[in-house]
């Protein structure tokens, strides 16, 4: 068991180190978050809708698009120089590789989620609402479910001719629960409603993330086998 955790840990460490040194994906995702906030601001007529009424939905849609941008390239750098073959041939079980990749993607996406939240609070003049902790929990659980699906299907799309083009078609239908419960919780929390009102949402987000993680870990070996 401890060996398994160490294998997962090594992959997480390698990916995060790579990201820290190149800052490739974070730079792109961070810039995307800010620019999406700018465009959403101009696409909203504030004489018709109050920004705080639609902010939660926009936050989650930005997170989804931004997540696809980054998570879609999970296997890109490695497959370019053949390092993916090496990783897959290593004695680490395939699910350990999947979990390592998912955790490092999660770390990246969660930081981006915080940035998205900050950008929208700044641009749309939002208050932090009733419970910052519950808000972080909603973003965290949503991001976890997202990266579990995103990591699995980015391995699928990396093996197709269409590449990242096919990724939204595979992932979007499955993301419906995450968007419904996530945006629902975020909207209510930003509006200052009590945490008890979103406890159900948070539980469903957690269950969704768990199922996506378990299914992803079980199915990943069939995607990368040769």
């Amino acid at each position, binding site marked *: 068991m401890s060996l398994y955790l160490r294998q997962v840990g090594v992959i997480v460490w390698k990916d995060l180190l790579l990201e820290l040194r190149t800052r490739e994906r974070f730079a792109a995702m961070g810039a995307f978050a800010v620019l999406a906030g700018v465009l959403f601001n101009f696409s909203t007529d504030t004489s018709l809708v109050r920004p705080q009424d639609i902010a939660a939905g926009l936050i989650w849609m930005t997170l989804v698009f931004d997540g696809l941008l980054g998570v879609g390239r999970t296997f890109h750098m490695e497959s370019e120089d053949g390092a993916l073959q090496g990783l897959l041939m290593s004695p680490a079980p395939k699910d350990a590789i999947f979990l390592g990749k998912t955790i490092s993607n999660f770390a990246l996406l969660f930081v981006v989620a915080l940035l998205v939240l900050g950008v929208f609070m700044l641009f749309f003049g939002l208050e932090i609402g009733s419970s910052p902790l519950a808000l972080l929990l909603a973003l965290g659980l949503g991001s976890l479910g997202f990266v579990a699906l995103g990591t699995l299907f980015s391995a699928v799309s990396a093996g197709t*001719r269409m590449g990242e083009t096919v990724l939204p*078609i595979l992932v979007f239908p*499955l993301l419906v*629960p995450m968007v*419904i419960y996530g945006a629902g919780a975020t909207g209510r929390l930003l509006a200052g409603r009590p945490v008890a009102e979103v406890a159900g949402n948070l539980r469903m987000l957690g269950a969704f993330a768990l199922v996506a993680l378990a*299914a992803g870990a079980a*199915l990943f070996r069939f*995607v990368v086998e040769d």
Partner: protein
Amino acid sequence: MSFTGIRRTGVVLAALGLLGLGLVYYLSFFWVSTEASQGIVQRIFYVHPPAAWTTFVAFGIAALTSAMYLWLRDERLDWAAQSAAEGGMVFGTIMLTTGPLWGRIAWGTYWTWEPRLTLTLLLWFIFLGYFMVRSSTENPDQGKRFSAVVAIMGSMLIPFIHLSVIWFRSLHPQPVVIKAEGPSLPGDMLTLLLTSLGVFLVLFTGLFMLRYALEGARHELQLRARRAAD
């Protein structure tokens, strides 16, 4: 059963299904009584739910045979999954076109975010992804594995998707056939609905077997071509 046998049975069943479809159309236009509140438009009822149920059966078969394919790696399971998924796309498209037409008259709107509508639309797109990954891989075996993963992941998350969209209130009629108190439909309507369901399932099974036999024949052709080349 040999492939020739499967193909013959498929042809017979598909022909029976098409004949039955003619009968269903005849009965739903000239025989069954007109529903009191919706009038003539309600006759689409004898096409829409049977198409929907057939779609769910087809996608169920596709998900199940996909999982078994990944487990047993028998080519035939993959042919079955692909054939069922194609059938599901056809009947799903029928369901998704008849639904809005009926909804426009009965509810006053083509589309509403009702749980079952949303579920079937998303299911349709999941299987669109199934065919997209399948057709865009260089290595056919990879395509089979990828599409199986898509089908399994889709079927595992479907309950979540359904639960989450139930959050939106429901406009779709409550079940009228399968419920505790027994069917609440008038006799002739129920008879025609169940006849139509039977016809749709026979047609689907016929198309499914034809498609399966085609895949088998293609496989055999490749084998023979390879043997001839050696």
